[in-house]
């Protein structure tokens, strides 16, 4: 532990996004504000026999825009996604890792699927006996290979870890960056989530009957399920003094993080939202922010009946009487549920909201659930002052994560 009279603070100094609505942070943000959706019929693999075959795929991905020909040839699709987006974030943060002490750089990359495309191909080849499979590719199969592969490409020498709390991981990694910086383990944390869509997971959510044949409608009275998405979202979270010393922007700060378990069910959220509420309260307490000071909530908002109902209850219980006055959105209607990357995409959106004071609307929410007493932003993006944001995610195994971001003061 590093001891200092001043607590160490963490700022978001760079962002990168590769999403179903755009392959850069700017395009992602522009798509959110415009209310675009990237959900459509899956094209990347055969969907014959699947009950639901729509999802948010990354389109027109041109890895060579940021990767060398040799890297494109050598790296699996998931590593291409990760490296492509990490380089965006570093560029956005004007950060050259060769110019910093890389033993003070951490890499925290969440993924629920990792190299599953490799695993699928391996098992198909083994079962059919047709064709050849390069067994060396199996090194990219384990979950941790997504993080360690990226760390090798970037020459990172600090902590490298791939947290796995399923669909809440993308929020957790941002909170973990704050913790690593506070504890003195790192000055720079490159964090985010990476997922590549595959038949394995589409069939999984289909068999749970969690997907919809309609479209994703978070908090809508007609909502009937989720659709999956893919992509990568990476953020540079940096110790404030370190960022200032190199002239990086320090206008958005991560100030609190909370994690809590439902301890009730493996795949369904606690109906009363108690676990999600606990995580939100922990994050607010960690940030020393009163619920009444929250100006916007980025919800998990998957569009399933039970998740959204749980979240309505949780957000209401945390924000109390102010709940109806605080705007809330979900971006799952725009990009789908990107699993472990979801919370990181939402963190990038939150940073942009703090910088632009514009809140994107909840795509496809047209008839608000009468049971919802929250100010769900519908229709068009809204311009209003936002200084403090609460972002929340929930997941299988009863995991809940929340973070608090705010416009940084100048002190």
């Amino acid at each position, binding site marked *: 532990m590093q001891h200092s009279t001043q607590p160490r603070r963490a700022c978001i100094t760079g962002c990168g996004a590769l999403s179903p609505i755009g392959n850069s942070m700017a395009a992602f943000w522009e798509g959110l504000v415009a209310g675009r959706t990237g959900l459509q019929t899956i094209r990347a693999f055969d969907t014959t026999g699947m009950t639901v075959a729509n999802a948010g795929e990354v389109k027109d991905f041109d890895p060579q825009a940021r990767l060398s020909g040799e890297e494109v040839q050598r790296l699996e699709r998931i590593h291409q996604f990760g490296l492509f987006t990490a380089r965006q974030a570093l560029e956005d943060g004007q950060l050259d890792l060769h110019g910093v002490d890389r033993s003070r750089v951490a890499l925290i990359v969440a993924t629920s699927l990792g190299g599953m495309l490799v695993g699928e191909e391996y098992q198909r080849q083994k079962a059919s006996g047709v064709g050849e499979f390069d067994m060396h590719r199996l090194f990219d199969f384990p979950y941790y290979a997504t993080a360690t592969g990226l760390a090798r490409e970037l020459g990172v020498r600090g902590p490298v870890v791939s947290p796995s709390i399923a669909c809440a991981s993308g929020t957790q990694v941002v909170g973990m960056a704050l913790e690593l910086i506070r504890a003195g383990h790192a000055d720079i944390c490159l964090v985010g989530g990476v997922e590549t869509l595959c038949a394995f997971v589409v069939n999984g959510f289909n068999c749970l009957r969690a997907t919809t044949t309609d479209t994703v409608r978070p908090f809508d009275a007609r909502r009937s399920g989720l659709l999956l998405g893919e992509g990568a979202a990476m953020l540079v979270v940096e110790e404030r003094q370190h960022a200032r010393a190199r002239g990086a922007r320090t206008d958005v700060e991560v100030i609190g993080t909370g994690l809590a378990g439902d*301890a009730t069910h493996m795949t369904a959220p606690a109906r009363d939202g108690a676990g999600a509420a606990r995580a939100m309260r922990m994050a607010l307490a960690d940030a020393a922010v009163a619920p009444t000071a929250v100006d916007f909530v980025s919800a998990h908002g998957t569009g399933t009946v039970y998740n959204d109902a749980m979240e309505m209850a949780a957000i209401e219980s945390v924000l109390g009487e102010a709940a109806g006055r605080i705007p809330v959105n979900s971006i799952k209607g725009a990009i789908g549920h990107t699993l472990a990357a979801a919370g990181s995409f939402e963190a990038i959106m939150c940073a942009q909201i703090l910088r632009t004071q514009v809140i994107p609307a909840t795509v496809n929410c047209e008839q608000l659930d009468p049971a919802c007493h929250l100010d769900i932003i519908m229709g068009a993006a809204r311009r209003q002052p936002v200084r403090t944001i609460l972002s929340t995610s929930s997941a299988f*195994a009863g995991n809940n994560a929340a973070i608090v971001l705010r416009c940084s003061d100048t002190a």
Partner: protein
Amino acid sequence: MTDSVVISGIGVISPLGSTLGQIAARFCAGQRALRPLSDMGVDSAFGAPLDEIPVDVIPADKRSRIGRLDRLCRLFLSAAYAAVGAAQLSIDDADADRVALSFGTGLGCLLTNAEYNQKLVEHGPTAASPRLFAYTVSSAAAGEVSIALGIKGANVTSHAGLAAGLQAIGYGFDLIRMGKADVVLAGGADALGAALVRGLADMQLLKTRAAQAFRSPVAGVCPAEGAAVVVLERGDRALRRGARVLARIDGYAAGFEPSLTQRRREPTAIAETMCRALALSGRAAGDVGVVITSAHATALDALELAALQSVLADSTSPVLCAPKAACGETFGAHGALGVALATALFNEPARAADNVAFGLDGVSLQAGDAQNRLQRARLALIHALCYSGPTVTLVLAREN
């Protein structure tokens, strides 16, 4: 920041046994748990599968779910119950949100993923199993433990390859130090099964002949399985409730050595991370009496040894232990099992045999010498190193 973080209970399931006394005695006696893996579809390879995962530590009224759990969940659940039992810890609703879980696993739910996907490959989308799919997230094991024990605080599962278990214990240490939890069940586990062994065989990563740690590198692993979960607790809390303190964690650090998969490997980040762990703990390298190494008779042993020689140059007589020689490659469980072994060596008297411990030169110590050094040891370094780069060091102090 909280002043001290102690270990008040340990649950262990390993090829060497399921109590601290067993693993200390068998390790010191030089016993090996490795056996042929012919029942997993490969000949001429060795590993250490568990004959059974003990479930008697799980209360009878909590065993109804065991039948639906995969092997990783069973390992974590059994080890967690054993740890809570050893710590005489009760978790009630009043403090459930101040109790956290931090688990690490190298391969996670690989076996369940393989089983679930095999059905898809053979029979198509209609064969997708909701029961199996629910366990295709690595956090399922921690979820099961949280449900069984009523734990409502942070619930984190981390992948860091073969360093995952130790990284998870380090993160648990941080959670308490930062005031995010009062108690953390932290540890690592990995499960062995035919799908994993076949994959390792396809990758030509199974050792096919005997090798000795630090001396005769042979590529590959002798795959094994196991779990260790420790109860981490604020020192003052443990004292107040009269818990037996087994050891104290003084610090940890995690790093990454990017050269490990390159032709020219270097120990730079391994040594940096060890130094950082010692610096953060406030302890001197000269105080280190025991090192639980990651050595598995591969080419990485030499790098680990070089890092230790540079970091511990001022230490007069550290004992280097290589538990993987006895129980195989336990993947993400290794570091957590290493914490259990070091704690056992601190607390359980055991006579050391020849060829179980090494000096800083990598040469085997004679039994008497090893025994004397181990008895004097007050501080341990636990080191976990993954072939793909992660390196974690934890500083563990004797408390009695």
